[in-house]
């Protein structure tokens, strides 16, 4: 499947190159703005440029990986497939529908965002020293997996909503793109109600912030239990399970489009 998408995208070589360069440029510009503005404040909530860059790097890397794996569930793109009746064609094939949607798109140009993430991480390591231990590597891997699961599940729910309406894609974008922006900063800078929302309702708190606190050995101003940094992957998994239920409910309700 992947090789198919690779080949079909390569059949538009020029457009692939331009899109790839485009994502890369946007990513670098985004980071440049961030890197230029941050030193003026010296620190954000007690965290320096290196620490915040670490957060941003992990988010970009994870989001890029997620976007590559879950690009079939990108609500904008998925909604278009539904409207054009291409989703029907997937339902007619004897393969698990979730796997088919996952395999229906494989957007290579997301490599751009992944590279941006890696560059920001590399940059952060020029500013901060990390005493790497096996546990820290594991926590980092869990954080990345958790974020892939978390944002992937938001993509799935967003795609499910497009069975009924396309207008609410924007609402989902607030959570996905807004969410990825938000967890690029230390969570204790946000007001109480936001923090509560992102602890108990959408547990984004554990995705990036606590793993970073553990890896960078920073104090936890919010007083979470000591195992909080391990929760990223479980949170991602839990979200995916919920998203799967929503998704299957959506398929049952799916009304197709008129011919």
């Amino acid at each position: 499947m992947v090789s198919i998408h690779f080949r079909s995208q390569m059949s538009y070589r020029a457009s692939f190159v331009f899109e790839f360069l485009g994502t890369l440029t946007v990513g670098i510009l985004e980071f440049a703005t961030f890197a230029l503005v941050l030193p003026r404040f010296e620190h954000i909530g007690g965290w320096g440029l290196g620490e915040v860059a670490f957060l941003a790097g992990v988010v970009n890397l994870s989001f890029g990986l997620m976007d590559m794996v879950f690009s079939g569930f990108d609500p904008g793109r998925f909604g278009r497939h539904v409207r054009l009746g291409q989703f029907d064609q997937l339902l007619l094939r004897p393969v698990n529908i979730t796997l088919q949607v996952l395999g229906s798109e494989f957007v290579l140009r997301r490599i751009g965002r992944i590279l941006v993430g890696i560059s920001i991480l590399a940059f952060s390591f020029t500013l901060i020293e990390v005493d790497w231990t096996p546990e820290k590597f594991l926590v980092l891997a869990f954080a990345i997996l958790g974020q892939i699961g978390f944002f992937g599940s938001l993509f799935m729910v967003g795609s499910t909503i497009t069975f009924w309406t396309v207008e609410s894609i924007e609402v989902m974008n607030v959570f996905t793109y807004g969410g990825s922006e938000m967890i690029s900063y230390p969570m204790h800078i946000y007001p109480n109600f936001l923090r509560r929302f992102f602890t108990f309702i959408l547990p984004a708190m554990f995705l990036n912030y606590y793993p970073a606190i553990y890896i960078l050995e920073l104090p936890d101003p919010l007083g979470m239990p000591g195992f909080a940094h391990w929760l990223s992957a479980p949170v991602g998994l839990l979200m995916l399970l919920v998203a799967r239920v929503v998704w299957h409910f959506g398929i049952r309700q799916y009304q197709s489009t008129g011919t």
Partner: protein
Amino acid sequence: MTPIIRVNKLSKHFKVRKHHRGRLAALRNLTTRQYRTVKAVDEISFELMPGELVGYLGPNGAGKSTTIKMLTGLLVPTSGELEVNGMLPWKQRTRYVRDIGAVFGQRTTLWWDLPVIESFDLLGTIYKVPEKDFQRSLDEFRQLLSLDEFINTPVRSLSLGQRMRADICAALLHNPKLLFLDEPTIGLDVVAKERIRQFIQHINQVRGTTVVLTTHDLSDVEKLCQRVMVIDEGKLLYNGQLDALADRFGGDRHLLVEMTEEYENVEIEGAQVIAHQGHRVTYQFPRHSTTASELIGRLSERYRIRDLEVREPALEETIRRIYEERLLK
């Protein structure tokens, strides 16, 4: 033999949002939500035997596509029973679709940017078709549908007729028991239509594939189907032999007469003269109250006749009458 399709009181209702009109309509649409239920398919029942080739007719929005989508497992029925090939299509979807093929006229199942042959190979893999069977089917279809002229072309560059041939081939590579064709000849020219019809007939007769065909083009039906089902506004109006359809709803027939000499007055009892030109007279007579032989008897008593022809009304006319008059209601 047991039926391959069993449908009993099958219904599909859609909830459609009511839209306000007039002043502040956009605002009211946003704040209030009212729904209206549309019965796209309303308690239809029918059975289909293996090997049948049935035409499914109806005007736009009659419920044809909705029925096909339930039969192919895309839509979950609102109520009623539906069993195809011994399975519940929507419930056992992945297993069920292994044994069916479906072509939705306006859409393609092929990969837009890949050469046709690569899409075929990929479908062969997806359906896990044994290599030998796959090659045999492909060779057969390549020849019957003349696929070779474009088999290495990406799908996006095919003409509509070529794409349809490729799509029909794709739907049959896994040798399904059942083939659903939704408007397979829409937008095609006469030659392309004919080629596809011949192919459908071949598949039905040689492979014994059961075919359900929806179409607007009644010549498809006349050439291919012995049996038709007519649906309108979600209700099944007719289900039976194509010949019997004309018999039941055909309305008036025409009798074309060529006489040996010109007569002033050609009126006879039981028929109406609708054209009279020189030796040729056309009568129109009701199907049920008058028989053709009665008329011919009366005519030959009075006039000298050279030639006769009884004309059935065109199928199109018949179908139109069914829709317009709702003769079964």
